[in-house]
C-alpha cells in the first residue's frame, strides 16, 4: 500500500494520456450499460416470465378472441391450479400518441397470478370493489402525471362505445415492483366493465383475448398444453398453448435482426475502445522501462515490480470502469426509457452489473499483465541500456 503514492505519481506524469485513457474506458463502460439495458428491453422480460405459467391464445393469432366459456373447461383440467384472463384494450389518452398499454382483466385472479405487481392492500381492496376502477404502473403514473383518485378517460379504437365517447376510469391504485424488469407502464381495469358494454353488441360479448393459467408441475407443462389444445380442437376457436416464456421469447424474436445487429456492432466497438485504451496503458509501461530498471537497482524484487505495474493498470481500469458503470446505472435507473414509453422494460439488470464489474477487473489485469511480466523479468543491465 505504501507504493500507492508512487503509482499515483506515475499516472500523473502524462496527465493527458491518463485522462484520455480513463475517459475512453469510461465511455466503453457507459456503452456496455446502455447495450445491456437495450438487450433487456428487446427481450421484453423473458427473464422474468414465469415458467409455471402457461398462456393460451387463439390458434390463428393473438388478435382473435376466444369464448369466455373456455375458462371453466381449463379450470376443470387436472394440473391447472389457477386461471386468469386478459383482453387487449389498446386505449389512448386524448391523442393516439399518448398510448396507454391498457388491458381488461379479472382483478383478484390477475393479481394472484402476477404477484410481481405489488399493490398496497387498501388500494387493492378499493380496486376490487370499484367496477370502473383501474390500477396503473408506477412508470405510467409518472409519465402521465396521474394520481390515485384521478378520473381518466381513455379512447379505444378497438372497443368503441356508442356515440364515440371515451371510457371513464378511476385510478384506484398504483402498482410497483421490487423485482427488476417488470413492466410498470401498464393499465389494468375490470373485464366486467368492458364486457357489459360489449354484450350489447351482437356477437361481441363474452370474448377473451388470452388465458393465463398456473400449472402444478412445470415439468409437465408441455403435455398439459397439448392436452388443453386438443380439448378445443375442431371448435370454431382452436387454441395454441405454450409457456409464458415461450410466448415472450417468440414475441421478442419478432423484432429480429435489428436488435441483434445494433447490439453486435456496438459490442464490437466497445471491445475496440477497450483495446485502444489497453494499448495506451501498455505503451506507458514500455516507455518507462529504464525507470523500472532503476527501481530494480534500488532493490525492488520481481514480484514487487509486477505488482506495481498491475496496480497501475488496475487503477486506471477501476477509475474509468467504475465511474462509467456508476454513471450509466444512474442514467438508466433515474432517467428511465430514452424513447418515452416505447421500451417499457428499460433497466440495467443486476446480473449485467456484476458482469460489468468483472469486465473492469479483467481489463485491468489483461492490459497490465503482459507489460508487467516483461518488466518484472527485465535484467537491470538491459533496462538501463534502453533509452
Amino acid at each position: 500500500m505504501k507504493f500507492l503514492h508512487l503509482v499515483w505519481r506515475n499516472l500523473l506524469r502524462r496527465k493527458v494520456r491518463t485522462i484520455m485513457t480513463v475517459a475512453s474506458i469510461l465511455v466503453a463502460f457507459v456503452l456496455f450499460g446502455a447495450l445491456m439495458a437495450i438487450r433487456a428491453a428487446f427481450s421484453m422480460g423473458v427473464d422474468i416470465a414465469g415458467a409455471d405459467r402457461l398462456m393460451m391464445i387463439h390458434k390463428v393469432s393473438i388478435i382473435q378472441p376466444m369464448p369466455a366459456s373456455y375458462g371453466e373447461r381449463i379450470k376443470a383440467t387436472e394440473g391447472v391450479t389457477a386461471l386468469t384472463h386478459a383482453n387487449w384494450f389498446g386505449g389512448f389518452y386524448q391523442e393516439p400518441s399518448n398510448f396507454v398499454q391498457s388491458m381488461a382483466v379479472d382483478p383478484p385472479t390477475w393479481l394472484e397470478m402476477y404477484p410481481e405487481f405489488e399493490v398496497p392492500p387498501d388500494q387493492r381492496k378499493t380496486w376490487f370493489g370499484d367496477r370502473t376502477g383501474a390500477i396503473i404502473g408506477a412508470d405510467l403514473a409518472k409519465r402521465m402525471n396521474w394520481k390515485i383518485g384521478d378520473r381518466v378517460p381513455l379512447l379505444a379504437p378497438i372497443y368503441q362505445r356508442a356515440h364515440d365517447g371515451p371510457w371513464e376510469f378511476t385510478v384506484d391504485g398504483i402498482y410497483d415492483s421490487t423485482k427488476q424488469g417488470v413492466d410498470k407502464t401498464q393499465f389494468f381495469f375490470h373485464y366486467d366493465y368492458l364486457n357489459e358494454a360489449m354484450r350489447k353488441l351482437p356477437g361481441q360479448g363474452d370474448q377473451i383475448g388470452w388465458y393465463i393459467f398456473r400449472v402444478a408441475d412445470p415439468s409437465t407443462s408441455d403435455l398439459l398444453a397439448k392436452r388443453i389444445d386438443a380439448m378445443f380442437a375442431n371448435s370454431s376457436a382452436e387454441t395454441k398453448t405454450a409457456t409464458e416464456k415461450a410466448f415472450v421469447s417468440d414475441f421478442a424474436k419478432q423484432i429480429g435482426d435489428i436488435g441483434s445487429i445494433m447490439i453486435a456492432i456496438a459490442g464490437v466497438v466497445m471491445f475496440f475502445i477497450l483495446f485502444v485504451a489497453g494499448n495506451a496503458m501498455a505503451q506507458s509501461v514500455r516507455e518507462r522501462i529504464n525507470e523500472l530498471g532503476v527501481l530494480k537497482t534500488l532493490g525492488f524484487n520481481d514480484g514487487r515490480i509486477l505488482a506495481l505495474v498491475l496496480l497501475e493498470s488496475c487503477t486506471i481500469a477501476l477509475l474509468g470502469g467504475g465511474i462509467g458503470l456508476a454513471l450509466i446505472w444512474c442514467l438508466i435507473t433515474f432517467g428511465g426509457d430514452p424513447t418515452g414509453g416505447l421500451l417499457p422494460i428499460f433497466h440495467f439488470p443486476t446480473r449485467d452489473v456484476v458482469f460489468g464489474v468483472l469486465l473492469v477487473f479483467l481489463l485491468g489485469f489483461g492490459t497490465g499483465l503482459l507489460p508487467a511480466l516483461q518488466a518484472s523479468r527485465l535484467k537491470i543491465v538491459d533496462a538501463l541500456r534502453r533509452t
Partner: protein
Amino acid sequence: MNWITQMLAVTGVTLRSIPQRLGSSIVAIIGIGGVVVVFTAVLSIAEGFRAAMRGTGDPQTVIVLRSGSDTEMTSGLGGEETRLISEKPGLETSDGPHASPELFVIVGHPLQRSGTDANVPLRGVTPAALKARPQIRIVEGRMFNTGTNEIVVGRSASRQFAGLTVGSAVRWGTSNWVVVGIFDANGSVAESEIWCDARVLQPAYNRGNSFQSVYARLASVDSFQTFKDALTTDPRLQVTVIREPDYYSQQSQVLQTVIRRVGFGIAGLMALGAIFGAVNTMYSAVANRTREIATLRALGFGASPVVASVLFEAVLLSVVGGVMGGGLAWIGFDGFQTTTMNWQSFSQVAFAFRVTPDLLMRGLIFAVIMGLIGGFFPAVRAARMPVVTALRQL
C-alpha cells in the same frame, strides 16, 4: 518563407513521418472507421425502413378508416359504409370502381430465420385492390381467383416467412390456403403482406359483412379535397381519409423513433470514445516528435504551420477511417433484407437496409469532425512547446 510554403513544408515532414508511427496511426484510423461503420449502419436501418414505408405511398391513392383509428388494425367499417365511400365524388371511375374495401388481420406464421411464429399481416382484398394501387403487379404465378382459398404473397413476405412459395399450401387455424402467386410493389411495405379474397376472409374471422379500410384511387392527385369534403359532410359516415404516403409515414413513426434514439445514443457514445482515442493518438504522435517540432521551430518555422500540419494529419487519418468505415458499412449492410415488428400495425414489415450516398457523406463529415476535435488540443500543445525545453528533452 511565407506562411503557405511553411505550412506545406511542415505538413510534408509530418506526413513522411507517419510510416514511423504506423501502429498508432492505424489505431486512430480503425477507431474512427469503426464509429463511421456503426453510425452508417444504424442510420441505414432507419433509412431503409423509411424508404420501404414511404415507397408504399402513391399520393393519388387514399385510405379511409373509421374516425378515431390511426391504423387499419383497429379500424372497422360496415359493408354499407364501404359502399357509400366508394360512390363519393373525387374517385377514379373509368371502367369500374377504383375503391377496394379491405380487411387487415394478422396470422401467426413462422419466420424463415428463427422458425418461431410472428405476426404476419394478412389482407383481404376485393378485385378493385389492384386498380386502387397501380404500382402492384403479379411477378410470378397469377392473381387468386375470387371465392377460393387461394392467396398471393408479397415478394418480401415470400422471402422472409417460411413456406410461402408458389404452389405451397398453408394452414392457419382451421382454414387451408394455397399460394398461387407472388406480387411486387417496388420494394415497399406492401410486399410484407399476404393477400386473399376479403369475402373468404370475412367468415373465417367472424367479420360478417364488415371491413376495416377502403383503399381508393383518386381521379387526380388534386381531387383529395373533393373526396374528403364529400365524406365529412355525409352524416352516415364517421370516417377519416388520408393519402397513402402520409398514412405509411405516420405508421413508421414509432419504430423510427426507437431506432433513431437508440441508434444515435449508441453512435454518439462511440464517437466520444473515438475522439478520446484520436486525441490520445495525436498526443503521442506530437510527443514522439517533440524534438523534431522544436527543431523546426528553432529553424524559424511559425507556430501556426505546426498547428495546421498536426490538424491536417488528424483530418487525413479520419478521412481514411471514414472512407473505410463507410465502404465497410456499404458492403456489409446495403440491401440487407430483414423484417421487424412494426408496433403500430402490430405486424411484421419487411425492408432492406439502405446505405445512401447522403448517409456516406454524413458519415465522412462526422469522421472529419471527430478528427478535428481529436487533433485540436495536441496541435495547440505542439505549437506552444517552448523551443529550448523541447530540444533538451530526450
